[in-house]
């Protein structure tokens, strides 16, 4: 790589920008619906909100084909290793959206059974507040993530 | 069953003790009668009318207050029939005519008896639409208590408390009719040492505490029961915290110790726990930069290296340990074992030159219980002013004299809080106590009447050192005299928080854990359990400081100790600390003394650790944890354990509870004392058996005879609010210290030409100071009284010789 690291190389920086933009245009989410938030996540994919507008309608059951994990719902302590395994199986670059109060912080379930925030298990890029967040809130989260990727504020 | 009567309460036939109040009898059998003014520890007045019940009498139904009606045989009572319900609704509607509905901002909201009773017994809606009465709110009636007269429901609990219980009636009703309200006397604040209790018993939010005001609401409080570590009475407290910050302490009503009352120092002295000045990281002193923050391992390594060098060179004889009275028993045991086994020294003293023989304090036989005061016919108090140093014990003695009819003899160089209830009060010059004692023993001279008062048993003697000008052995002589009285029991008095626990754990030069004497019979089994003991004779605090000042001590441990301020001879302490090459401090604050330490370890304190403490009657009680320590603080035992490991010794401490099990194994007196028992079956504590391995043989009464030179003697004594670490770092209390002053009898002042002077120059062997003069005609002639450790006062030393000249 040393030979390729030009200090201010027109070609590589522009390609990098293009690559970052391209990555935002078709992020395929892995299905990780765990509770009520998943209903809103499904609604986001349906006609009224239509995630296909962002090229994201393909919720993949196989983590190998997904770039984005939307953790939708409460993560129990027993689910945490599963969640981590799915995350580990996703190919790089990959992102995580923590959807809703439970996934983000445990929400109203401040008890021993739940992981108090999924960021204890996987690195989270965007947190979406709400209980559950409506489709528009989730899309706000997705757009926030896209903008961060384009601006290079998250590792991609 | 002649002492029992049969009453029918709501159709249930009950056997209750004759003469009991109806409200108590009903409560014991599960019928709660609502009340505001009635308090189980005070006399009934029947002011609030909330406890109205219906009695069936031959002349028809009668409405009476349950709190003023004793039960009688055949009584038929209704507490919840229609008439009574109408009464209760009426009473509550009346109470709410003027009670403001500012519950959301009221500190009492959420735990308010008035709120609860209105919800449970109230009418639901008021017919009164008129304007409520208004007062300026809230008005501070002392530094600690605020009064909101609008909220007051005139139950007289506070006025009765200050009259019946604490004996300083500074708060009273004033005005008439609709205008009746609580007030203090003009120009006289409610400056009682017990004012906080009125806040706790107020059934509404009329009296609130400045320390708790708006700090939290009841529903976000966590609470744990614990034991107060300010005085030695072992008061049970309810320790409450919100968001990892201690915000309030309430008294718990337990029969053996405090009966629900607390002194203000205990109630509001928790603030130091969350003080921003707390040490949060270990410090190392640098010659140039002062203290710098380091990691635990750096600090421990440095201490271990230096201590190792000294131990290898001159041995344990040149290492000494001061302090430990602020520790729990478990930490004190760890310190004792650390000193004896790792450091190999007997130079260990927790008493910090209060001067009394540790054997006398810890191993007195016939030790009294606090509850013995209730059955005593006569009480002799020859010791410190109980109100200043043992506030809740003071309340018990006061109750015994005032309510239970005990004869009370008080001996002290000046006035004490008990004087107004004392049957006989004797004053004397410190140093001449032996003469007075001789008179008292013989029943001659001015002590003849007092001697007669003590002739009838059972007698309880509360014996301690009246001040630092006093010969410490006098207390033992007084105790010897008390033992000759009929049916006598003795309470030896010392004032430091857990001093009795510390002595029982062996933090004294002559004692090992379980009151085993150094070199005595039991020492062998301890040596076996510990794998060795120090052999050389140990020095007490004064001895250690003198040896240190002479250069014979090379390592000095200060464990929660501030000798510069806390030892009567502060000048000696300064010389000592400056001379010792390596000082290790384990403390919560950077005190004057730990500022001179080379290594300072930050330790967990009260409310941050679990353990047990022992009070002055030998009662072992649990202290509990409710908040984490700030920053990187650790419990003392763990610091010592780590230090020992670095010095090549495994002390084998796993946890404080494991240490408590080791104490139960090693210390004979503490056999069978476990945390499980203290947490569950015996919440009020376990009294360990009195006496030690070698129960103290009292010195005969005529031995002490130090005579002070000159015609003036210094009486240096403690007061409740001083410049000690815990008070100084509790903002509510810090301003209450009375300030440095020299108290003179008007005759003495006139003789010295100081009758109209503002200040005087006080010179002792150890120091000198210019202090404002206060005239005090309760002083014995020739006694110069100076309160100890007041803010800004240079150390004056113990005296007793003193000269006072115009400034």
């Amino acid at each position, binding site marked *: 790589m040393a030979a390729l690291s030009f200090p201010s190389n027109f070609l590589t920086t522009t390609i990098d920008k293009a690559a970052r933009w391209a990555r935002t245009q078709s992020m395929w989410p892995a299905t990780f619906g765990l509770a009520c938030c998943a209903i809103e996540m499904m609604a986001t994919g349906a*006609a*009224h*909100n*239509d995630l296909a*507008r962002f090229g994201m309608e393909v919720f993949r059951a196989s983590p190998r084909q997904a770039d984005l994990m939307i953790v939708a719902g409460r993560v129990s302590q027993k689910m945490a290793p599963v969640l981590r395994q799915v995350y580990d199986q996703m190919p790089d670059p990959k992102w995580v959206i923590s959807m809703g*109060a439970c996934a*983000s*912080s*445990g*929400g*109203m379930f*401040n008890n021993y059974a739940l992981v108090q*925030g999924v*960021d204890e298990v996987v690195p989270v*890029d*965007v*947190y*979406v*507040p*709400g*209980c559950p*967040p*409506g489709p*528009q*809130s989730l*899309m*706000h*989260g997705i*757009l*926030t993530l896209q903008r*961060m990727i384009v601006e290079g*504020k998250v590792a991609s | 069953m002649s002492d029992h009567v049969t009453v029918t309460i709501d159709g249930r036939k009950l056997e209750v003790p004759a003469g009991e109040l109806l409200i108590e009898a009903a409560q014991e059998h599960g019928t709660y009668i609502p009340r505001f003014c009635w308090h189980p520890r005070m006399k009934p007045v029947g002011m609030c009318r909330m406890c109205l019940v219906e009695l069936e009498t031959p002349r028809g139904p009668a409405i009476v207050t349950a709190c003023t009606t004793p039960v009688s045989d055949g009584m038929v009572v209704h507490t919840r029939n229609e008439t009574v319900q109408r009464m209760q609704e009426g009473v509550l509607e009346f109470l709410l005519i003027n009670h403001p*509905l*500012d519950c*959301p*901002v009221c500190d009492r*909201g*959420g735990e308010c008896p008035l709120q609860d009773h209105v919800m449970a017994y109230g009418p639901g*809606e008021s017919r009164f*639409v008129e304007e409520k009465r208004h007062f300026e*709110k*809230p008005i501070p009636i002392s530094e600690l208590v605020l009064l909101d007269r609008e909220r007051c429901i005139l139950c007289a609990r506070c006025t009765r408390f200050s009259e019946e219980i604490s004996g300083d009636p500074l708060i009273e009703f004033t005005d008439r009719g609709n205008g009746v309200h609580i007030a203090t006397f003009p120009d006289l604040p409610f400056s009682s040492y017990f004012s906080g209790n009125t806040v706790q018993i107020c059934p509404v939010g009329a009296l609130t505490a400045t320390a708790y*005001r*708006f*700090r*939290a*609401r009841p*529903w*976000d409080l966590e609470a744990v029961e614990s034991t107060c570590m300010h005085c030695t009475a072992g008061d049970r407290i309810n320790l409450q915290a919100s*968001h990892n910050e201690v915000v309030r302490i309430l008294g718990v009503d337990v029969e053996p110790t405090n009966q629900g009352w607390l002194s203000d120092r205990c109630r509001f002295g928790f603030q130091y726990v969350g003080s921003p000045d707390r040490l949060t990281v270990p410090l190392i002193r640098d010659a140039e930069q002062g203290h710098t923050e380091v990691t635990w391992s750096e600090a421990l390594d440095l201490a271990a290296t230096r201590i190792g060098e000294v131990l290898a060179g001159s041995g344990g004889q040149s290492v000494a340990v001061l302090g430990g009275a602020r520790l729990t028993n478990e930490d004190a045991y760890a310190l004792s074992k650390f000193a004896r086994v790792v450091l190999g020294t007997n130079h260990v003293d927790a008493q910090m030159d209060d001067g009394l023989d540790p054997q006398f304090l810890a191993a007195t036989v016939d030790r009294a219980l606090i509850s013995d005061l209730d059955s005593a016919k006569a009480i002799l108090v020859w010791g410190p002013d109980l109100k200043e140093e043992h506030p809740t014990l003071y309340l018990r003695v006061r109750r015994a004299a005032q309510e239970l009819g005990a004869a009370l003899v008080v001996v002290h160089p000046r006035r004490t809080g008990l004087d107004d209830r004392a049957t006989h009060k004797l004053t004397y010059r410190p140093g001449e106590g032996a003469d007075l004692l001789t008179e008292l023993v013989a029943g001659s001279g001015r002590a003849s009447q007092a001697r007669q008062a003590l002739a009838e048993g059972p007698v309880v003697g509360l014996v301690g050192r009246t001040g630092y000008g006093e010969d410490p052995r006098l207390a033992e002589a007084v105790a010897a005299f008390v033992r000759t009285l009929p049916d006598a029991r003795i309470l030896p008095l010392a004032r430091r928080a857990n001093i009795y626990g510390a002595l029982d754990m062996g933090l004294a030069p002559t004692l090992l854990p379980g009151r085993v004497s150094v070199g005595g019979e039991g020492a062998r089994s301890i040596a076996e359990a510990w794998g060795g003991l120090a052999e050389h004779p140990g020095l007490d605090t004064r001895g250690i400081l003198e040896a240190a000042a002479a250069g014979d001590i090379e390592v000095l441990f200060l464990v929660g100790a501030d000798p510069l301020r806390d030892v009567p001879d502060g000048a000696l302490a300064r010389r000592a600390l400056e001379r010792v090459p390596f000082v290790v401090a384990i403390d919560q604050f950077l005190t004057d003394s730990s500022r001179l330490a080379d290594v300072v370890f930050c330790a967990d304190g009260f409310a941050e650790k679990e353990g047990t403490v022992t009070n002055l009657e030998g009662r072992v009680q649990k202290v509990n944890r409710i908040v984490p320590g700030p920053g990187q603080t650790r419990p003392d035992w763990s610091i010592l354990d780590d230090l020992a490991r670095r010095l090549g010794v495994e002390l084998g401490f796993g946890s404080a509870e494991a240490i408590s099990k080791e104490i139960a194994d090693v210390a004979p007196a503490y056999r069978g004392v476990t945390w499980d028992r203290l947490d569950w079956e015996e919440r009020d504590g376990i009294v360990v058996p009195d006496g030690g391995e070698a129960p103290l043989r009292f010195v005969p009464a005529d031995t002490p005879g130090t005579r002070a030179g000159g015609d003036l003697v210094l009486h240096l004594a403690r007061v409740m609010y001083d410049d000690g670490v815990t008070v100084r770092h509790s903002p509510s209390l810090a301003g209450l210290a009375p300030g440095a002053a020299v108290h003179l009898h008007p005759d003495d002042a006139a003789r010295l030409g100081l009758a109209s002077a503002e200040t005087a120059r006080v010179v002792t062997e150890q120091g000198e100071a210019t202090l404002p003069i206060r005239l005090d005609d309760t002083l014995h002639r020739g006694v110069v009284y100076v309160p100890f450790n007041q803010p800004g006062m240079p150390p004056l030393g113990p005296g007793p010789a003193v000269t006072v000249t115009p400034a």
Partner: protein
Amino acid sequence: MGVMSELWKGLRVTGRIGLRSLVGRGIVTTEYPKEFRTKPQRFHGRHVLNRYPDGMEKCIGCELCAGACPAQCIYVRGADNAPDDPNSPGERFGYVYEINMLRCIFCALCVEACPTEAITMTHLFEMSVTSREEAIYTKEELLMRPDGTVPHPRPDDPYADLSELEVADGWVRATAPSGSAAYEGVKMWQDTAGPASWDPEPDQETRDA
């Protein structure tokens, strides 16, 4: 043969909807973020702390909201009002007021618990954050400005419609402010944020006179 006819059936539906959308009829999709769906009047969005028309804070720091909160997302600390320059009417005001939006479940129990109607909810719900710290709204972000406008941590967020901050959720109180049960169920709410401005209770003037 059966397969082909079923395929034809399905494609007919797709084709019909496709053709209709070409002429712009029957599209249900909201083109967020270019357009925003209108939220129902009683929608629970982010909170706002209100002021009285004279500019005083309504919050008295009583912590009833924190007590009512099922998710323990509210942290309030009270303090004494300075007598000559009070923040709120009465003795006490909330000098710390924080809501952790990531714990909040937007149930509005805090709004119901509030004795002074200090905390109400707006319609703004789009407030994703990239770190947990950002999700904690402090008093600075919750308390409306004296002019009635509501601050927001990201005032330039292109994906949120900040005018939703001006819309208050409507809610029905159980009793009148005076506590009289006669007004139970009477609808008394305003549908915009800003200083409270509803009409007095019907007989309030006669009672005050």
